[in-house]
């Protein structure tokens, strides 16, 4: 049986996933399995079976499954693409599991973002921001925090507080966009 990803080599790892009545199979060769270890960090991901399980878990529905396949293919074809700032290529990134500079995240967005999303489940930073960032980013972060708060207040039906928060958000938005 040939590998589902490269369609060339003999698949040596086989996984079956059963969810309700759906049965999905994945057959993969050693080389492509190695490609998957792009996610490798510390010892957790070193275990190939786990990586595969993880990968397989990402693509629970058809649409995402084929998307993940595409990512893999992109990685193997675009090996020699280089970052314009630090000069690291995709092949090296994959090998060491680390990028070379801040610009890499921008440069290899198409490949890195889906991977980041699969690790963290999203692409939205909710953590603190550096003190010396621009005022706009700070305001945006404030608005984001307030929106989350607003949601919670609405859930517990504390409309009085919610209205206050809504006004605050409006004021901040005016501050940023001038409308």
């Amino acid at each position, binding site marked *: 049986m040939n590998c589902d990803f490269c369609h060339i080599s003999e698949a040596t790892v086989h996984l079956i996933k059963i969810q309700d009545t759906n049965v999905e199979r994945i057959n993969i060769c050693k080389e492509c399995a190695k490609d998957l270890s792009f*996610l490798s*960090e*510390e*010892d*957790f991901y070193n275990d190939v079976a786990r990586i595969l399980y993880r990968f397989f878990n990402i693509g629970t529905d058809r649409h995402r499954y084929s998307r993940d396949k595409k990512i893999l293919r992109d990685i193997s074809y675009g090996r020699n693409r280089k970052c314009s*700032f*630090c000069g*690291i290529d995709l092949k*090296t990134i994959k090998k*060491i*599991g*680390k*990028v*070379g*500079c*801040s610009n890499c*995240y921008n440069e290899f967005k198409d490949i*890195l973002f889906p*991977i*980041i999303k699969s*690790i*963290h*489940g*999203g*692409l*939205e*930073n*909710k*953590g*603190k*921001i*550096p*003190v*010396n*960032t621009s005022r706009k*980013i700070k305001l*945006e*972060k404030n608005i984001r925090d307030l929106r989350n708060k607003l949601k919670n207040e609405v859930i517990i039906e504390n409309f009085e507080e919610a209205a206050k928060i809504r006004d605050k958000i409006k004021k901040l938005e005016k501050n940023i966009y001038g409308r």
Partner: protein
Amino acid sequence: MADKNFYLLENRTRKRRPVSNKNKIILNTRVRLARNLADCKFASISSSQEKNILLKEIKEYVGNIKEFKDFRFYSIKSMGKIQRDLLLKDYMVSHKIANKMQGKGLFVRSGTDWGESSVIIVNHEDHLRIQSARPDLNILEAYHEVLKIEKYFEKKLSFAFDRNLGYLTASPVNLGTALRVSVTAHLPVLAVSPGIADFVKKLNQVGCLINGYFVGHSEIIGNLFKISNQVTLGKGEEGIVEEMQAICLNIIDDEEIARRKLRESDLLGIKDNIYRSFGLLKYAKILSYEESLELLSIIRLGLDLDIISGINDFDFFELISRINDSHIVSDLEISGRVTDDQLDSIRADLIRKKILKEAD
């Protein structure tokens, strides 16, 4: 630097906090933040020269800050193998730092208690890694400590940051808050109970990684587990801290319930197990590190369950740090080659001295 306690600080005068060793399930907490400088190659690929320049800058900066004056600096490259090993183990720094040591450095500050420390790691994967450890479950305190240290750097340095991805790190797994909370858990009953598979699954579901404490071993040694948060992006710092705290409390509950159940169902069996371990520790002349850990884990359980007496109360984590090879070699200032058997025999004596009440 021949002094055996070469990195310990002399002024340990603050009062020791009352930490009970009894029923201690979470043995320690470590919180780590990663930061990189903007417009700079990350330490994952920067050259030795670039690393050295950055290290020099950071060194100068740390030297100029009053609050940092009790930090001691160690250049990884210029340390001896045993000293380095000791330092990394005691301050719980990844041993991977010892690969390509050029331009890497550590600033360490030990707290008043054993196991309490703050470390600033320079040029290991990320430009800066700030980490703080506590000898029990105290995530919040450790988090505040790293935040405090980070503030001083934040004033002077501009960190790589993206509004969507948060703090940018060399590895995509650390993006966002770049905050990693990890605890060491001692789970002697849960580890051998049939519920362990469910337990691991449960932890994975809530976004936690669980591994054996000792890296590079596929087996769990001494029933010690390392549990850490997997997701760093998409959650706030406080959220991560609170969540991990709650998860740890749940872990403690799970282990305690398992202990109670075992006690009710198989008291004789557990007694037998504990006294067998006791016998081995008391009479064995050669004890490897791994075997010592297994036995001490069971003895610790015996003390926790009030099954065994005639043994000094001990901090499991502290003791196992003291009996590792590097510690034995450095404490005894052994010169020349030591065979494994010699080491194992010294270790067996050391353990007896520490835990047996009437040392004969």
